[in-house]
């Protein structure tokens, strides 16, 4: 092997190494302090939150007991009949599951559109006015910090039972959560195209349309599809407060101890989320493939 570097004698290297070490020491000290603070916070949180691993281990048995009790009785010689009995209400549940997915779909779509229009206002690299930026950020924060179920409860009171309160609750939460993620994507863009558009005399909306949007669409799509998946899960518990979907039947089964119904509905939800995950992955790859080469 050819030697490409004349290794300097140690005496000559020592002062250079010392200078480098001195320069990085400060950075190391900062990382060390950060690590120490995080460790102390973990200990404090565990103490105040009364996290007791002992309790978890002592009562782990109870959890498995519940899971054991929701397992249906399936016998090999009468499998067909047992399955039919387990999923005795399949038609109804499938209809509710479809409702759930539609609630998630509409909620994601409406929230996503809101997030799209708001996120640009919350970006430090695009908006110079602190007031607009702060207002947009605080509004998005409000939308995502109030739990979906709380919004759903409020809307059920206002609009009555049914899927609409669920859609609205998901849309608002999605707007807050996606708006934050979208804004972070926008803050990481390459600013050269933005300068190019401004230098060509573009107004703010035109600049965003031509210099920012093309850079962020693929990431927006990924986050949007991920949010759809999350929303399907969220929509499946909207029924707990009467805001539509399969949650209504799930909470009833849990409260009334219809053990095998609980497992039947849970498995349906898990299967639905899996299918959606597979489909959205395909969609995302198509989208990234088209906009790819970056």
């Amino acid at each position, binding site marked *: 092997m*050819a*030697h490409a*570097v004349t*290794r*300097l004698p140690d005496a000559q290297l020592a002062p*250079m*190494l010392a*200078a*480098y070490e001195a320069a*990085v020491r400060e950075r190391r000290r900062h990382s060390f302090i950060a690590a120490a603070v995080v460790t102390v916070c973990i200990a404090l949180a565990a103490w105040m939150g009364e996290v007791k691993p002992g309790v978890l281990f002592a009562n782990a048995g109870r959890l498995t007991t519940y899971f054991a009790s929701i397992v249906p009785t399936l016998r090999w010689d009468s499998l067909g009949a047992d399955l039919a009995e387990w999923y005795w209400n399949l038609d109804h549940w499938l209809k509710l599951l479809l409702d759930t997915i539609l609630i998630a779909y509409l909620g994601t779509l409406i929230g996503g559109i809101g997030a799209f229009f708001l996120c640009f206002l919350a970006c430090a690299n695009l908006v110079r006015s602190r007031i607009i930026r702060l207002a947009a950020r605080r509004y998005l924060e409000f939308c995502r910090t109030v739990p979906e179920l709380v919004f759903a409860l409020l809307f059920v009171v206002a609009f009555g039972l049914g899927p609409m309160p669920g859609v609205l609750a998901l849309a608002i939460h999605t707007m807050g959560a996606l708006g934050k993620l979208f804004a972070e994507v926008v803050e990481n863009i390459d600013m050269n195209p933005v300068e190019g558009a401004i230098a060509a005399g573009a107004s703010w909306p035109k600049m965003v349309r031509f210099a920012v949007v093309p850079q962020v669409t693929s990431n927006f799509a990924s986050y949007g599809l991920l949010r759809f998946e999350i929303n399907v899960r969220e929509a499946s518990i909207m029924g707990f407060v009467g805001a539509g979907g399969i949650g209504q039947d799930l909470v009833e089964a849990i409260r009334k101890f219809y053990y095998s119904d609980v497992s039947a509905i849970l498995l349906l939800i898990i299967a639905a989320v899996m299918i959606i995950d597979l489909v959205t992955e395909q969609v995302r790859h198509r989208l990234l493939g088209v906009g790819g080469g970056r």
Partner: protein
Amino acid sequence: MLVIEGLTRRFGDKEAVSNVDLQIGAGAFVGVIGRSGAGKSTLLRMINRLQDPSSGRILHDGRDVTALSGRALRAWRAEAAMIFQQFNLVGRLDVLTNVLMGRLATAPAWRALTKSWSAEDRAIALSALDQFDIASLAAQRADSLSGGQQQRVAIARALAQEPALILADEPIASLDPRNTRIVMDALLRINKHFGITVLCNLHSLDLARTYCDRLVGMAQGRVVFDGAPAALTEQVAHDLYGLEAGEVMDLPAAKPAYGDAIPQAAALA
């Protein structure tokens, strides 16, 4: 000795490099010239195996490097160091760490992943930086450096790999004239001092003539010229570059005589 036999790379139905045969002796400084899209980059990237050939072989000292995989392939990549047009440093890491990345092929995984480099690795990385008078920048973030400094860091990283061969893909295309000279001088120095073979893609013919002792001209994926810089007549240059010829050479302001040569070149293309 680097031997390339019938090397071809297809992208879809387009051949970026088609049936290239070359023999490059150890210690040569070879300039690969031609207009953009001629297949120069693909050729260099195939030698480092950043891109796999569709067919053909690359042999280094009798060893078929197109057949390598796993650890042997990574060792070959370290041996055939790449230098890129956009430097390809990690901007958020400091300069010395960037140079130490040249030791990744040989450093044990636990040392590399915990950034606890051996004293020897650090000594070599610092020495490589000092060779280009930038040891004082070791602790700075790479993205705080100027383009010329960044390319010198990239060359130091290449040297830290202790390569037998340096593949420079348009190393000066993003640099101003002064830094161009510094970087090309650095490559020449490595070539002459340590006898490392340098393969350098260049767009500018004048630079290629000044620094290289052999030129390989490519057009549409094929080698259309191979010889000493002196043998590259203006006629050949026009064939290579067509209408771009004026941009890559310091021609005396276009005379009518050259006007005749241009349709001829176009007819050849």
